[in-house]
């Protein structure tokens, strides 16, 4: 069937492990898979955290003046000096998780499950596992473990290659 064999392909290098930056790779991967593309995600550095069984993603406004939360019809940004205080990151994370729920945005867990269900090929970076001492058993079952060459091989055959 046409919608199963689009024959196009996409690869994404996933380098970031915060709640906000977890979204673009999983949204694009699941959508591309739904549109018939073969998708490969290569998880490296902080992005590797997105493969952990226990997802505990956080977000901070520290050093991110572009992050404004809608609040009572206005938008509120947090000054860096406040964002650096203990508990500020937990507060911001809670606010964002509430917004995600309220606006009908999928959770990262949900998008990751959908990606696995859609046969998105996931590769965990071996070097990052060694560097940060992350064990294979700390991560979900699906992904294979590989290095830069595994991604390069996929990338040479992919129509779209993204670095996020």
């Amino acid at each position: 069937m046409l919608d199963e064999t689009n024959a196009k392909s996409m690869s994404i290098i996933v380098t970031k492990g915060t709640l906000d930056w977890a979204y673009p790779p999983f949204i694009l991967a699941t959508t591309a898979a739904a549109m018939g593309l073969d998708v490969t995600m290569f998880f490296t550095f902080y992005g590797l955290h997105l493969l952990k069984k226990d997802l505990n993603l956080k977000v901070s406004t520290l050093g991110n003046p572009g992050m404004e939360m809608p609040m009572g019809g206005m938008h509120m940004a947090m000054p860096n000096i406040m964002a650096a205080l203990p508990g500020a990151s937990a507060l911001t994370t809670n606010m964002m998780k509430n917004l995600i729920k309220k606006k009908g945005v999928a959770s990262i867990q949900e998008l990751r499950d959908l990606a696995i269900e859609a046969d998105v090929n996931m590769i965990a970076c071996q070097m990052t596992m060694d560097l940060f001492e992350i064990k294979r058993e700390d991560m979900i079952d699906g992904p294979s473990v590989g290095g830069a060459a595994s991604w390069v091989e996929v990338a040479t055959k992919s129509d779209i290659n993204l670095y996020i």
Partner: protein
Amino acid sequence: MADMILDAKGLNCPLPILRAKKALKELPSGGTLEVQATDPGAVKDFEAFCRTTGNELVEHHMDGNTYVFLIRHTG
């Protein structure tokens, strides 16, 4: 009347597309799916989805605050 109706109201990008894809899989070729969504981005997205996957976007219209898409599984 569509063969299947998918209520994707209240869901945000990319969930309406992902749910629609799942629903289309269950439909035989030629079957029709009605998707109901409230995400304004869904209009452009369902057009792109159908063009890319080879499914036919028969029509779409608004019903109050709801976007209604009729898709024929021709993929």
